C-alpha cells in the first residue's frame, strides 16, 4: 500500500510530531498546529489569535519579511495559515526534494518572530479590511449574532476575526504576549504527510525544533457554558437581498460518543438532494438552499440548521417548516436505509477529501486539536457502528426547544 500508518514522536521540549509516509506524488505537506484560537481569548482582545497569525508572516532574522513567501514559491510550493476556535495552524506543501524548507520556516516562526511595531500598525488596516470584507456578506452578521446569543460565558461565542472595536485597540504588547504564551513546542503539534523517509525527516525536525526551549504551559480554559434553559432569539435587520435563518443547538465536544451520531444526523438532514431538508425546504420553494451539521471542537459547541429564504417566502413559514422537519424526525425516527445511505456518502466523501497530502495532514491536525489523531484512523469503522437508534437518540437529546437559539437576518431598506 502506498500509505503507511501514522507514527507519533515526542521531542524533549514537548513538541508532538505526527508523521505519515504517503507515496502517491512526490510532495510533502508539513504543518505546525498551536493549541490556541478564539477559545483562549477574553473580551477586549477578541481576534488576537488571528491577528498574531498574520504577524508571524512578517519575517525573522533568518527569513526577512517576504523571504519565506518567495522561497516557497521559488521551490514550487504553496503555504498558508489559518485560525479557528481551537487552533492556529500553518503549512507548507512542497515538492519532496524541497521539504526541508517547510520545516525550517516553521521552526523559525515558532521561536524567532519579530512583531515589529510598524508592522503591527500597518497590519491593523489589513485585519480590519478582512473583517469588513466579511461584513459585506449578510450571513456574517447573522452568524456573529447567533453565536454570541448561544453562548453567554464560553469564548466560543466571540468571533474568530474579532470585534472591530477590539481590532482598533489591540496593541503590539497584546500580540507579543499572545505569541510568547502560546507559541511553544509543548503547546504545538507538527504534522508531516507525504513522500519522505521518516527517520530522515525526523532528523531534520529534531535539528530544527529540538533547540527551541520548552515554555511554561499556557493557562487552561476553564470556562464551562451553563446549560441553556429556554429558547433564545436574535434578529439582524440590515440592507440585504433575502432573509436568512439559522437555528443553533448546543452539542457536546468532540470527545463525546454522541459526536458521530450527530454528524450522521446532519447528513440525514442535509447532504445531497435526497436529504430531508432539501425535500422539505428547497423542493417546496421556501428556501433556495439549506444545510445542517456540527463541527469538531474541543469544548461543547453548536449543531446548526441554516437556510436562505426565497425572496417571496414569509420567514415564519420557513422556520415552521424547518422545525416541523426536526419534529417529524424526532417522532418517527430515521430508517436504517437512511443511515446506510449517509454512511456511504460520508465514506465516499472521505475518499475524495483525502486524495492529497495537504488535506490528509490537515485532517490529522484537526483531529489532534479536538480529541486525538487516533480517532481519524478509526473514523470509518466508528462511523459504521452508528445506528438509526443512535441518530434518533441524539436528535431527541439535543434538537429540543429549550436548547435552541433561533436567528434571522431580515433585509430592510437602508
Amino acid at each position: 500500500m502506498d500509505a503507511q500508518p501514522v507514527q507519533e514522536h515526542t521531542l524533549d521540549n514537548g513538541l508532538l510530531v505526527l508523521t505519515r509516509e504517503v507515496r502517491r506524488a512526490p510532495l510533502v505537506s508539513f504543518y505546525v498546529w498551536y493549541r490556541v484560537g478564539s477559545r483562549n481569548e477574553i473580551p477586549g482582545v477578541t481576534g488576537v489569535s488571528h491577528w498574531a497569525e498574520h504577524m508571524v508572516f512578517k519575517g525573522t532574522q533568518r527569513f526577512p519579511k517576504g523571504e519565506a513567501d518567495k522561497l516557497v514559491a521559488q521551490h514550487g510550493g504553496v503555504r498558508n495559515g489559518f485560525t479557528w476556535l481551537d487552533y492556529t495552524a500553518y503549512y507548507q506543501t512542497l515538492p519532496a526534494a524541497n521539504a526541508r524548507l517547510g520545516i525550517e520556516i516553521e521552526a523559525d516562526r515558532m521561536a524567532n518572530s519579530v512583531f515589529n511595531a510598524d508592522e503591527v500598525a500597518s497590519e491593523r488596516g489589513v485585519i480590519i479590511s478582512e473583517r469588513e470584507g466579511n461584513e459585506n456578506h449578510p450571513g456574517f452578521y447573522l452568524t456573529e449574532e447567533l453565536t454570541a446569543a448561544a453562548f453567554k460565558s464560553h469564548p466560543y461565542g466571540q468571533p474568530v476575526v474579532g470585534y472591530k472595536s477590539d481590532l482598533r485597540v489591540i496593541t503590539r504588547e497584546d500580540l507579543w504576549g499572545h505569541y510568547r504564551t502560546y507559541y511553544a513546542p509543548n503547546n504545538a503539534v507538527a504534522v508531516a504527510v507525504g513522500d519522505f523517509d521518516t527517520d530522515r525527516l525526523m532528523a531534520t525536525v529534531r535539528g530544527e525544533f529540538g533547540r527551541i526551549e520548552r515554555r511554561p504551559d499556557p493557562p487552561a480554559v476553564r470556562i464551562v457554558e451553563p446549560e441553556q434553559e429556554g429558547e433564545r432569539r436574535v434578529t439582524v435587520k440590515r440592507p440585504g437581498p433575502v432573509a436568512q435563518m439559522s437555528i443553533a443547538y448546543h452539542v457536546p465536544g468532540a470527545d463525546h460518543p454522541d459526536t458521530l451520531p450527530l454528524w450522521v444526523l446532519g447528513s440525514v438532514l442535509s447532504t445531497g438532494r435526497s436529504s430531508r431538508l432539501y425535500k422539505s425546504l428547497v423542493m417546496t420553494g421556501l428556501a433556495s438552499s439549506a444545510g445542517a451539521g456540527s463541527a469538531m471542537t474541543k469544548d461543547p459547541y453548536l449543531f446548526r440548521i441554516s437556510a436562505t429564504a426565497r425572496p417571496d417566502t414569509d420567514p415564519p413559514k420557513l422556520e415552521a417548516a424547518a422545525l416541523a422537519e426536526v419534529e417529524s424526525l424526532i417522532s418517527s425516527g430515521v430508517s436504517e436505509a437512511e443511515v446506510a445511505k449517509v454512511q456511504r456518502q460520508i465514506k465516499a466523501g472521505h475518499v475524495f477529501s483525502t486524495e492529497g497530502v495537504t488535506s490528509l495532514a490537515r485532517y490529522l491536525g484537526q483531529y489532534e486539536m479536538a480529541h486525538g489523531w487516533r480517532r481519524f484512523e478509526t473514523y470509518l469503522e466508528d462511523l459504521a457502528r452508528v445506528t438509526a437508534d443512535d441518530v434518533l437518540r441524539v436528535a431527541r437529546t439535543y434538537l429540543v426547544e429549550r436548547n435552541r437559539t433561533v436567528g434571522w437576518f431580515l433585509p430592510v431598506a437602508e
Partner: protein
Amino acid sequence: MATLDIRRTTLSNGIVVLVSENHTNPSVVLRMSVRAAPILDTPEKAGLASLTASGLTRGTTHRSFEEINETVDAAGMSLHSGAGRHLVSVGARSLADDLQLGIDLVADVLRNPTFPKREFEQLKGQTLTSLRQADNDTGAVADRHFRELLYPEGHPYRLRNTGYQETVAPLTRDDLESFHAERYSSRGAFCVVVGDVIAEDVVRRLEESLGGWEASGVAEAQVETPVRPTPSHKDVVVPGKTQADLVLGAVSIRRKDPDFQALRMANMILGRLGMMGRLGETVREEKGLAYGVHSELDAGIGAGPWAVRAGVNPANVEAALAGIRDEMQRLREGGVTPQELDRGKSYSTGSLVLHLETNDGVAGLIQDIELFDLGLDYADRYVGIIEALTLEDVNRVAAKHIPRFEDTVRVVAGPARG
C-alpha cells in the same frame, strides 16, 4: 519530470475521450464537456445556457428528479451539471466501482432531459434568489459593470454566465427544451476521465452510452476581439455595505495568443506570486490598505479581460488605486527583474506536481489541453516552455499588454463615498 499519460480516442460519433489512469486512490472523476455554453447566449435571454445546463439533472425520460437524487446519494457520488463561459460540463465524481453508474447518469441527463415543470420552477426560483444575492454583492456588482464597460453590446463576454434577474425571470421550460434540442449534440463534445480505471474499458463503456448520440448543431463558437473600449470610471452604490470592491482592467488576449505564457508570467509577478506579487507587497504589506488585492488574466477562446481586483475601505479607494497605478506603470516601464523571473519560472515548473496531485487537478489540465489544442504532451513540454521565456519576452509583453492606468476601465462598488 511530471509526466501525464493521456489516452485520446474518438468515439464513432466524433466524441473525443481522454483518459488518464491514476491507481493511487479508489475514485474516479468523469467530466463531459459540450459546447452549448453561455457564449451562445443572446443579451435578451442571458442565463439561458446556464439554466439549461443546471436543469439537465432535474429529470429525464428514464428517471425522475427524485430517482436521480436517490441514486446519486445512495452511491455517495456527486453528479454535477453547470456552465462555464465556453463549455457546459456534466460530470460525476464517484468511487471507482460506480464508474458505470456515473456514465449512465451523465449520458442520460445530457441526452434525455425533460425539464419537468415543477422542477423547472424550483430551479428558476433558486437561480433568481442567487442572482438577487449577486446584485447585492459588491464583487459581483463591480464585475457586472466592468464587463459592460469593457465589451460592446452583443459580445458574449459582456454577459454574466448565469444571467440577470430581468433576463432569467421570463424564461420558460420551453426555452430550455428548445435550447437543448437545438444546441446539445455530440459535435465538439469531449469527455475527460481520470482515476482508478482502465482506459480501454472506459472507452468501451462510453461508446455504448454515448456513441449513438447524434452530431448536429454548433461546434466551437468564435469570439471576436472587441474594439478597445473608452477608458472610464464608474462608482456604483450598494446599500448597507462596509467595504468597496474595486476592479480595473482592459481587454487582453486569447489563450492561443503567442504572447500568452510571457504575459501570464508578467501577471504572476505583478499580482499573484508569493503573497499576491508586487501588488500584495505594496497595497497590502507596505500600506496596509487591503486584505486582498490581486491581478488575473482570463485568456479564453476569445480575448478575455485582464483585471486587478481589491476589497478596500471606502476611505482608502483612492490610495489603493494610486498604489495599483504605480505598480502597473513600474511593470510597463521597468519590466521584471531577472530574480523575479527566475522565481516565477521555478514556481511555475516546480508546482506542476502539486497541481496534478488530485484527479480534479489532472482533469482540469486535460480539459484545457483539449479546449485550447495544447497537445497531449503539454505536461511534458511545459517545463521547456517556461524555461524558454526570456527577460526580453516578458518585458516586451508586459509593456505591450499591461494597459496604462489611464486606458483602463475602473469600477468601484460599495457604500456611498463622501
